[in-house]
């Protein structure tokens, strides 16, 4: 069998079970693809020896029978996840040389299920960015290319999206604080789901904004997202916000039957200046779900336009607190000190050298909105608006809406460097359709739905009820089948 790296998780699992392929063969195919894809700069730390050792162990386990679905599946892990003995630096200079003595719960669950880690994936520094341009490793590059320009794979999980789209791995982990799984998935024609807040343990995942951060899978198909999410989530005593709820068999819930489901179309997501192609794609998606037997209902989420400003108060505030730990004392980078420098100079120089410009900007704005005299005006007000944003969704669900359909992004992938002159707020607008979902703690999934006139992928987003990832995945599965999206980037790298 050739091109084993191009298999989906479900296909690979079935071949492994049937004994047609081995995990070692799958892993070697992916390692070969990674070695030939340096131009994409997706994998930034390589662990081929570890991967082959785990693949051998997976083959033994599969031969013994009863191996879990992820056993022997080669995956990439976002650099935000702490992985034991393997560099984990959140794409930041400040964590240069950091090798955790422990494994994040999510990557440990994947490891224990037999998944094979191929290496660590590029991302925006501390997951702060929408284009993978704030990474200490340099830009990750989108495998999709339609002219001379290198395009962004999106961010912050840009390396994960690029690696999955380019078939360097069968799937990857991502994390999503304001859209960091769903926007890169949409930019690369892949599937990405952010589960309900609390579904996946945050333990061992480098914290950005703790009340918003969630891990999730980035995959080639909705079925793969169901399989991998199941392995990633579940209660963890080490994360006090992790939900102690049973994890259903998500794959078994992909029945393809959405008859009678009510799908909401929120009018506030129809933005001024939205490209006609995105508007058309959105309508087409709604028509497809209607044809599958769903009822399409216009709904209102009145506080939508306040979501981005609220997010850009809350997320930097939490980041300024979380990133206080990078002080040059316990791990990572410490600046060289001059004569007479004391501990304050050590902190200030270390953080100035270790944090890139976007991270510095967000830490400082977070510091400002939490400082005496401004806490109520900015931070508390933003938390009140967040309550209202969540209430908008609760009212829609209470009125019988099962899922909400929106565009995933306001545009297709843009060129690397094209936003360099824009003010930071322009970049933040990338998250306009995704950020509400984090603020409300809901599950959201991006599904590739078509190509724009230039031939770049566009995605749609479905938002589900809390804890109902199974039903959400099923609706996404129907949409995926209806759009029939099978395009892949043409190899140029």
């Amino acid at each position: 069998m050739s091109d084993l790296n191009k298999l989906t998780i479900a296909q690979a699992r079935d071949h492994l079970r049937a004994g047609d392929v081995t995990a070692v063969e799958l892993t070697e195919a992916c390692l070969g693809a990674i070695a030939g894809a340096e131009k994409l700069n997706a994998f930034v730390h390589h662990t081929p020896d570890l991967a082959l050792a785990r693949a051998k162990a997976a083959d033994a386990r599969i031969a013994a029978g009863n191996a879990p679905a992820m056993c022997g599946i080669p995956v990439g892990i976002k650099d935000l996840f702490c992985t034991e003995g393997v560099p984990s630096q959140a794409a930041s200079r400040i964590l240069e040389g950091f090798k955790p003595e422990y494994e994040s719960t999510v990557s440990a669950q994947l490891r224990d299920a037999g998944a094979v880690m191929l290496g660590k994936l590029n991302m925006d520094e501390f997951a702060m960015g929408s284009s993978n341009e704030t990474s200490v490793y340099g830009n990750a590059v989108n495998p999709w290319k339609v002219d001379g320009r290198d395009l962004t794979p999106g961010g912050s999980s840009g390396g994960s999206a690029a690696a999955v789209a380019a078939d360097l791995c069968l799937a990857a982990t991502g994390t999503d604080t304001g859209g960091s799984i769903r926007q890169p998935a949409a930019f690369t024609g892949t599937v990405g789901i952010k589960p309900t807040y609390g579904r996946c343990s945050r333990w061992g995942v480098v914290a950005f904004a703790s009340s918003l951060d969630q891990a999730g899978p980035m995959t080639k198909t909705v079925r793969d997202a169901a399989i991998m999410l199941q392995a990633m989530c579940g209660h963890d005593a080490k994360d006090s916000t992790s939900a102690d709820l049973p994890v259903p068999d998500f794959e078994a819930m992909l029945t393809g039957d959405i008859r009678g489901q009510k799908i909401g179309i929120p009018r506030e997501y129809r933005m001024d200046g939205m490209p006609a192609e995105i508007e058309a794609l959105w309508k087409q998606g709604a028509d497809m779900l209607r044809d599958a037997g769903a009822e399409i209902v216009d709904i209102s989420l009145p506080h939508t336009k306040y979501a981005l400003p609220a997010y850009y108060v809350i997320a930097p505030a939490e980041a300024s607190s979380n990133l206080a730990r990078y002080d040059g004392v316990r791990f990572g980078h410490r600046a060289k000190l001059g004569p007479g420098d004391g501990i304050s100079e050590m902190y200030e120089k270390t953080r100035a050298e270790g944090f890139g410009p976007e991270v510095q900007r967000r830490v400082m704005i977070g510091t400002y909105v939490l400082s005496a005299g401004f806490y109520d005006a900015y931070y508390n007000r933003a938390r009140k608006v967040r309550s209202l944003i969540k209430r908008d969704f609760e009212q829609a669900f209470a009125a019988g809406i099962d899922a909400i359909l929106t565009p995933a992004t306001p545009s297709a992938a843009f060129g690397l460097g094209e936003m360099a002159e824009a003010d930071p707020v322009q970049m933040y607008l990338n998250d306009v359709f995704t950020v509400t979902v984090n603020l409300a703690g809901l599950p959201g999934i991006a599904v590739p739905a078509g190509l724009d006139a230039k031939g770049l992928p566009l995605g749609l987003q479905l938002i589900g009820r809390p804890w109902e990832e199974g039903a959400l995945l099923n609706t996404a599965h129907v949409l995926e089948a209806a759009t029939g999206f099978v395009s892949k980037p043409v190899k140029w790298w």
Partner: protein
Amino acid sequence: MSEIDLETARKVAHLARIAVPEENLPALAQELSQMLTFMEALNAVDVEGVEPMTSVTPMRLKRRKDGVTDGDIQAKILSNAPDAREGFFAVPKVVE
């Protein structure tokens, strides 16, 4: 539009413990001002009587037994320190 002056920018940088060279303060002040202006859209929302969100999911944090779960891992804890000596994290002199 909110204006962050140079003095405020300098103070914020110090509170965040990030060294910002004097010549970079005007650009920092301008960027912070832009972001604050963006946030001021929130002033248009009627938040009268609304509770600030403390937890996005209506759950009570789990309680656990107040017991030792870990320990005897001094070497592991120090293994990533930029400067560890005699079983401690070492830092520049703090008190005279």
